[in-house]
């Protein structure tokens, strides 16, 4: 969209008068950051409140997952390959960064295929990829397992913490804990799932719009959602048609479900949600690190005072956590929401001004 039109639409949003107060939730962690970074949050009219949702995969990963990864790596002297965001996330008693400093072989990779290459090049070591992510990432991880099987790579496995976002959104709506009037829905997740995957929110009389990530996408997304809220239109619109189709990327969905199957998954702050996770199918169990390396991780311990859980349910904003910006800062984070570049605490810490 040309800059001139973006500016004109920004003015429309800023000048808008609302007939009543509205709470809207942005589900995606990248949106959390972009609303701040682009300045679009500053354009919000009086009475419009943005609630951060559970859309940062690192943030919603429960301590138990990292506890298991660290225990496996210690007991089996395995290499951990991970996206960089996971490095400083605190587990119950440690973190991958702390373990690396003590000698654990922890490698940061850009793609799950890089982890597979690491395994090929180090055939005497077990390489475990920490598979953390939503629908956007899951097909890449499934394709990596298919590639490992095809090439008979025996020292590669994946510890799955893959999650599906629509069940988490439905769980939040059902909890009724926070009043949400409508949703800004994730762009890249929807590239895989399709627009239709979100239609369920209309059962609860909640409209939504899938949005892209540029300033003009966010501005038009909010304008269109406000139009729906004001007129009582209860539907899910696609504001990111350039990348999102009605039924999504069917090939990618087929790839996901050739390797994974739906399973219950634990979300930080929300708890166990049925069918919200992806477990590796039995026929690929050789690549399932949880089965390949049985361990008993230590009892899970939550960090005293950390309110990431409340934040991920939209109950509080980051500045309402007593640790925010004091004991918990990006360099020394207590909770994952301050560690991840997409975490709401990290975004508030960088961009929010009182």
């Amino acid at each position, binding site marked *: 969209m040309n800059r001139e039109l973006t500016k004109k639409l920004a003015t429309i949003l800023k000048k808008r008068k609302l007939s009543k107060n509205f709470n809207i939730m942005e589900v995606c962690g990248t949106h959390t950051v972009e609303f701040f970074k682009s300045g679009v949050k500053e354009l919000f009219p009086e009475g419009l409140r943005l609630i951060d949702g559970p859309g940062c995969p690192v943030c919603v990963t429960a301590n138990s997952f990292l506890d298991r990864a660290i225990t496996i790596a210690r007991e089996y002297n395995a290499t951990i390959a991970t996206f960089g965001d996971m490095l400083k996330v605190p587990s119950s008693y440690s973190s991958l960064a702390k373990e690396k400093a003590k000698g654990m072989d922890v490698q940061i990779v850009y793609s799950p295929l*890089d982890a597979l290459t690491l395994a090929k090049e180090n055939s005497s070591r077990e390489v475990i990829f920490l598979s953390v*992510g*939503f629908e956007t*990432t899951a097909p*890449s991880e499934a394709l990596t397992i298919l590639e490992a099987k095809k090439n008979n790579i025996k020292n590669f496995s994946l510890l799955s913490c893959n999650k599906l976002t629509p069940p988490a959104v439905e769980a939040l709506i059902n909890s009724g804990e926070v009043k949400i009037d409508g949703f800004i829905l994730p762009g890249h997740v929807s590239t895989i799932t399709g627009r239709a995957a979100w239609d369920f929110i209309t059962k609860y009389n909640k409209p939504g719009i899938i949005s892209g990530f540029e300033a003009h996408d966010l501005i038009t997304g909010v*304008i269109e959602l406000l139009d729906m809220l004001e007129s009582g239109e209860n539907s899910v619109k696609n504001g990111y*048609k350039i990348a999102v189709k009605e039924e999504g*990327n069917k090939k990618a969905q087929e790839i996901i479900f050739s390797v994974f199957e739906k399973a219950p998954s634990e979300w930080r702050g929300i708890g166990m949600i049925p069918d919200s996770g992806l477990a590796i199918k039995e026929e690929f169990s050789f690549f399932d690190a949880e089965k390949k390396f049985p361990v008993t991780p230590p009892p899970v311990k939550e960090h005293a005072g950390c309110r990431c859980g409340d934040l991920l349910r939209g109950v509080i904003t980051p500045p309402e956590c007593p640790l925010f910006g004091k004991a918990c800062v990006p360099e020394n984070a207590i909770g994952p929401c301050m560690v991840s570049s997409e975490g709401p605490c990290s975004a508030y810490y960088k961009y929010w001004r009182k």
Partner: protein
Amino acid sequence: MCLAVPMTIERFEGNYAVASAKGVEVLVNYAMTPDLKIKDKVLVHAGFVIEKLDEDQAKEIEATWEEYYKATESQAG
């Protein structure tokens, strides 16, 4: 983590494609979008093409919002 980067397909190399953005070229897996052609615009996430971008939609969207702006302005008087 769900960040994806718009890129252009430059050429194919075996089962992979070379995609570029702002002068940077990367090797990408395109198993999720097997019908790609050279110069197609795509979204790349973690070394994989996750979708082909539909550029015609961008023009249509811009025209729709131009109309929206005009209608809103005329209502405001």
